[in-house]
């Protein structure tokens, strides 16, 4: 964990309200893993935001040519902090605290991975998938992944490497952005679903997983592991479903946060047994059965 300034490589629109942020990763810091997050500091007189904002990593990569390491995050413009962030361009710098929090577990030998992302929660799920792909695991034979969106219009365009003119790489003629390429490959290895059925599968990401799972021989009689990030009702459904199916399940949560390092106890979520867990330091990834997802008073 370190507090440092980083240079923005790209900060580009991928849908109406979503942006893909890419920034340089320092050499002297351990690489971020799927599930982990960072906080950034909104700065400057025009920013009315006070606290740092947490964002999940969506990818990491090292360009084979330049040797430069970069990290990615997908974010939604929601309030003053993310609005401020969306105004920054390549070459500008950002104050980061990273990497923070724990990680999604990898499937054990013989275990099948079921990954589900909902809304802006697809970022850490895509990072997880890119890690599985990097390890040589394959769609349908080792994992299934589904990403859920409200409508077809809200599906992001993650062909970031080909969005000419918006990144410094293209100006510099660098055509091999490793991090963005791995993000796009992970996206391509996912089933897409929309709530309104306006594109792809009609239903939620979990519905899409269920449908795909039914026709998959590779999964029969194998233990499976859920990894999910998305809105609270989705995570509650993962907990319910995994318990019924007697499968392991890990969910990544979101909560308002102040310190990000476990000191202030501001970002807690209710856990079973009347206790609380800190999203920042105990999570953000939790075994689904640890959390009390019934209250609906989470993020």
């Amino acid at each position, binding site marked *: *964990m*370190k*507090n440092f300034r980083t240079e923005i490589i790209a900060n580009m629109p991928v849908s109406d309200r979503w942006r893909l942020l890419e920034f340089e990763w320092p050499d002297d810091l351990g690489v971020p893993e799927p599930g982990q997050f960072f906080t950034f*500091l909104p700065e400057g007189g025009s920013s*009315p*935001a*006070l*606290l*740092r904002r947490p964002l999940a990593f969506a990818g990491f990569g090292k360009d084979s040519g330049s040797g430069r390491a970069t990290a990615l995050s997908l974010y939604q413009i929601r309030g003053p902090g993310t609005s401020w962030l969306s105004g920054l361009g390549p070459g500008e710098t950002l*104050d980061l*605290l990273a990497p923070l929090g724990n990680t999604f577990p990898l499937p054990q030998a013989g275990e099948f991975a079921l990954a589900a992302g909902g809304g802006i929660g697809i970022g850490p799920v895509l990072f997880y998938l890119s890690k599985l792909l990097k390890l040589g695991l394959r769609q349908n034979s080792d994992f299934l992944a589904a990403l859920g969106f409200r409508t077809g219009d809200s599906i992001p365009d993650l062909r970031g490497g080909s969005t000419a003119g918006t990144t410094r790489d293209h100006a510099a003629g660098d055509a091999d952005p490793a991090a963005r390429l791995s993000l796009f490959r992970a996206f391509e290895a996912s089933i897409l679903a929309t709530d309104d059925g306006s594109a792809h599968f009609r239903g939620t990401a979990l519905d899409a997983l269920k449908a795909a799972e039914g026709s998959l021989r590779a999964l029969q009689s194998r233990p499976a592991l859920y990894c999910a990030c998305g809105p609270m009702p989705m995570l509650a459904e993962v907990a319910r479903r995994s318990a019924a199916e007697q499968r392991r399940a890990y969910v990544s949560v979101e*909560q*308002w*946060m*102040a*310190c*990000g*390092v*476990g*000191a*202030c*106890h*501001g*970002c*807690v*979520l*209710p856990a079973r047994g*009347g*206790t*609380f867990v800190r999203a920042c*330091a105990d999570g953000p990834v939790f075994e689904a059965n640890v959390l009390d997802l019934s*209250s609906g*008073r*989470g993020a």
Partner: protein
Amino acid sequence: MNQPETSVFGGIGREKITPETAGSPETGAPLELGVSIAGLTMRNPVGVASGTFGYGQEYAELVDLNRIGALYTKAVTLEPRAGNPAPRLAETPMGLINSIGLANPGLDAFITDKLPYLRTLSCAVIVNVAGSSEEEYVRVVGGIEEAACGAGSGGADAYEINVSCPNVSHGGMAFGTDPAVVERLTARLRKLTRRPLIVKLSPNVTDIAHIARAAESGGADALTCINTLVGMAVDTETLKPRIARISGGLSGPAIRPVGVAAVYRVSRAVSIPVIGVGGIASANDALEYLLAGAACVQVGTALFSRPTAPIEIIEGIAGWMRRKGVRSVDEIRGLLEI
């Protein structure tokens, strides 16, 4: 007023704290950054406020803890407390409402798991104490005093008595708004320890000077001004309060003028030192408090944005002193021109 008889408290279980000095190229004489609160030496006047810095270890990777003046721990209660329901935080314009509810591992775990690490630091370690009853405060301070007498474990350098937390149903602010209770509680704790007793005051009262004088009469060595202001924010879409417990404590730059005014008033109403806290994010903010009458300051909410803020503030204060030709921090509170 019952002042402690021993003059140096920093030496219990470790090396004595050395006040910080900084070179002054203009005059050649070193700047005296150290301050002394009822015999407790702080190497510089910038501490980290209770509840914002955990028990130190959480920030150890990010901040050189030995460079800060004092570490005021997260509150310690007799039993472990899970704290209040979520959400506990809401950001407001230049402010933060929190309702943590004194979540902490309790006295025994504090002594076993937190105190040994704190004793390895060379900043002053001030244990913030809270409770639901007077008896609870007595047992927490008594327990830490007892631990200090145990086999080399060391104790606190001082206690900050939290009679001002707005986020609990019993005790907390309910104590701190009644001068008779503040005086009686302080007097009971005074009998248990010779280490400095600092009473942290609530701004949610009609006259803070009245409560300040009660704490002084009870034997307090110093006062911290101010704890958070009661605040509330509503989400107009969900129609719900943004804090699960409806209202919470407002901190951050939004409350700084309230804190500066409280320090100005209290420091003129009592003869014990006042520690200023509330919305300090820069050296200039800290200097406002010091000029208004504070002997030293605490940084709280600003740590969440910039963990190294205390170090920058110490350096900024030293720079200001050089520029103004001020030789010691103690001189600053006499410089306000009215």
